[in-house]
């Protein structure tokens, strides 16, 4: 065969190792057995080529014939959010000291940015719940500082670059890392300035239909969709670990004397491991963030029911706080509900 190909003059290039992916791989791997270099600033020539390419495609691209769309779809259609004009993400939030405590060591933050511009940037939401711990107002200070610093970092590293049209620059840190660093910076600040204080934090950034959740401690994020309610964060508590190891049942954990013991929190140590998860929000999906003052008192099924029943997320927040208070409200109660359009 090789002989034939050579006679036909078909693959002299390829024989030299030029075009075949698999062969290339082997060679390239040896050639670049060193870390990839820093990005090279593009020469103007290349840039021109790119621009020309883009111009060409925009000029020449013909529309697909409408008849082309009837084929079978191999993937389930991705239900993306296409909001009706004037519809956008809505949220409600409430933080309450509860029935027993005189002070509120929880802190919350909520913000929605929405624009209509030619470049069609997505709506953005920033939501943070922090549950502070520590005497002498140290708990309040820890949660307050955390909420402020996380929001500040996210606005600086996501919102501002988005407004400046810099978010798709190649060297930007991944969005998940922005949230991770935001929480780590809050941790550094609390460690330095509030030695006796600590706090949990569950922070969400929503960009378009993707929700990024950074999480430390035992505050929680739930996703409520047509399929039901799902806890998307994992408590960093001793009892949760025991449940995962089949050493405790959920019911036993609820009564366990050490159910308040966390193994990860802001203000505990210098090196903080932060969970950052990314989830797509379906149309009309809702995200609920809360401190343990809510989930310790109100069962998941009830939370789901209340969230579904209200079209106004702020009213749902009020009802959930009331329910927790009706059941004794021994701890501070904080809740944020975000409703996606669609």
């Amino acid at each position, binding site marked *: 065969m090789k002989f034939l190909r050579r006679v036909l003059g078909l693959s002299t290039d390829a024989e030299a190792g030029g*075009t075949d992916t698999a062969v290339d791989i082997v060679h390239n791997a040896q050639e670049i057995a060193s870390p*990839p270099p820093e990005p090279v600033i593009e020469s103007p020539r290349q840039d021109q080529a790119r621009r020309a390419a883009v111009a060409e*495609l925009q000029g020449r691209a013909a529309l697909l014939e409408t008849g082309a769309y009837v084929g079978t779809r191999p993937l389930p259609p991705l239900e993306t959010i296409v909001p009706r004009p004037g519809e956008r993400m809505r949220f409600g939030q409430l933080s309450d000291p509860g029935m027993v405590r005189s002070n509120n060591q929880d802190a919350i933050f909520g913000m929605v940015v929405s624009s209509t511009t030619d470049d069609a940037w997505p709506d953005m939401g920033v939501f943070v719940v922090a549950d502070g711990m520590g005497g002498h107002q140290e708990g309040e200070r820890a949660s307050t500082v955390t909420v402020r610093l996380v929001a500040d970092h996210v606005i600086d590293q996501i919102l501002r670059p988005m407004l400046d049209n810099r978010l798709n620059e190649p060297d930007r840190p991944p969005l998940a890392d922005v949230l991770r660093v935001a929480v780590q910076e809050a941790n550094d600040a609390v460690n330095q300035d509030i030695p006796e204080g600590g706090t949990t934090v569950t922070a969400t950034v929503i960009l378009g239909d993707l929700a990024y959740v950074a999480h430390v401690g035992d505050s929680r994020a739930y996703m409520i969709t047509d399929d039901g309610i799902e806890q998307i964060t994992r408590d960093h508590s001793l009892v949760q670990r025991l449940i995962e190891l089949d050493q405790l049942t959920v019911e036993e954990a609820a009564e366990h004397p050490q159910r308040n*013991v966390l193994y990860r929190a802001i203000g505990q140590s210098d090196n903080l491991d932060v969970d950052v998860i*990314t989830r797509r929000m379906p149309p009309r999906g809702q995200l609920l963030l809360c401190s343990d003052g809510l989930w310790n008192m109100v069962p998941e099924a009830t939370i789901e029911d209340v969230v579904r029943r209200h079209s106004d997320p702020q009213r749902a927040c009020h009802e959930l706080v009331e329910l927790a208070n009706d059941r004794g409200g021994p701890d501070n109660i904080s809740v944020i509900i975000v409703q996606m359009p669609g």
Partner: protein
Amino acid sequence: MVDTHKFPTKQPDKSQGESTLQPGSVLQGRYRITGVIGVGGMGSVYQARDLRFPNVTRYVAVKEMLNLSTDQSIREMTLKTFERESDMLASLSHPAVPKIYEYFPSKTRAYLVMEYINGRDLEMIINSSTDFLPVETVLRWALDLCDVLGYLHSQQPEPIIFRDVKPSNIMVDEHGQIRLVDFGIAKIFQEGQKGTMIGTEGYSAPEQYRGEASPASDVYGIGATLHHLLTRRDPRLEPPFTFHERPIREVNPAVPPEFEAIIMKALEFKPEDRYPNAAVMKQALEQLTHPVAPAISVGVKPAPEEGGTTWVGAGVKPLWVFECEDEIRSSPTVYRGVVYVGAHDNNLYAVNANDGTFRWKYPAEGRIVATPAVAEEDNLVVFGSTDSLFYAVDVRVGQLQWTVRAQGPILSTCSIVHGHAFFGSDDGNLYAVRLATGRVQWKFASGGAIRSRPLVAGELIVFGTEIGDVVSTDLSGRMVWRFRAKRAVSSSPLEYDGLVVFGSMDWQVYALDIARGWKVWEFRTGKPVVSSPAYGDGKIYIGSVDGSLYALDLATGKERWHFETEGQITSSPAFANGAVYFGGVDGYVYSVDAKNGRLRWKFKTGGPVPGSPAVVDGVVYIGSMDHALYALKA
């Protein structure tokens, strides 16, 4: 750990002043306090000089236990328990157990006078050392520790359970001997107190948090202590019960695998999976110091992953083998009982899936590197070739229906959606071809050769280029976004839950927001990534030229496990029924458990396996550079 209820007023803080005996004060007219050894939540431990022996300096340790409950009955009960413990201690006789000299209770406190141990505890020893402790030293301590705890566990009628094995409760005396201190007496006082822990976070066995303790719980404590000593990783700073996530030898390769295996067995979550008591653990350790015939025999399993060669490999026999005339570097497609595969001999082969018999072949004019795709409604099998042609062949008989000519070789596999084939070429264009007519609907000039398979998800097309751009267009070929990796992206993007994932020659695996191309996470492997990702069970599976197959959590981008092979992995994995299948340049076809990355089986072919498997109905079809197409039982 942090206790969310740790704050308002801690009892010991309040009582600290009155509980502390001042240096110089004399207890019972006999023990002059000379210093404080330690301060605990329930009282202090003092160093004192025994005045009965005025001519020699004889030190004792005086342990003070505060009994501060305001409830009369609780106070009495506490006192009784304390007395019982003291009696028990006094009856023990073991060189590692400190001797008890005297015990005197009072209304609000009790004192225990015991042997003063001149030395340092293991926690101090770890903290003052800067490097790993010698393995032989740790092994000797481990034997001594098991010896004394084995002695306690052998007590009649009931075994004594120490409950709190941890470095700070183990001392090394001036003669280098291990001594056990702090016999859990303080714990009797602590029990039932709100917000405090039973045992110590980090070293206690899981069942102790249920209030259960057995000799096997102490075995866990020994394991946890040894793990800390050998790795220098303080378990109190890690999530509880995660020793298995920090394999000792990964941190400290000087530790023999057999020693590691014993410690890991001691650290099993379930008590019944550990050594039943310290004496049995000691027997296992003794095998390390006296390597009789086979060193690994007493209940120590060798590392399970790689060892089981008895059935790994030898047991896997191909269902059939089909020989082509040249290397197979592409991946087969299976459709209605027929396997289609392209080879370097320019042919596209159609082979019966059940027995590997030949049906037909179609000769292109160049090599077929791309995976053939079947257009069901049009009864076509379509594929590109290095001859710059895109072929559409009748899926049943192998007769040519039409071709499309690109301006460069076609190495990109095509995607078939909405009655169109989408593929890229080295000429830099992405082509959309109407399958029914073979007409090019549009092409998109990306600026770089396209060798990845275009992903079509909803209304978007995403593909990688050899100049490192990942481009998204809509179905009409208009650009939506462009992402720039630092090197070529030959890996074919995969979409799941709003994220698009692919690898790059810049060593990274990227996840982007599919709607906008914004980077969500990145994961760095040790070499270029040309393998394309597969999804299953919440995880992304992708190979790297560094030789490993990685399983990454889709939502977090964190590694769940990786599986190492002897060569590069350029093959794209396939996921089916909880298993991952892929080929290696080392010549093997691998099947690993998707949950934990353990090898299920491997099969040796006669050459590197750069292509990817197709897994259909429990059969893996994969080609090798030894010219053969294999059908293997999944």
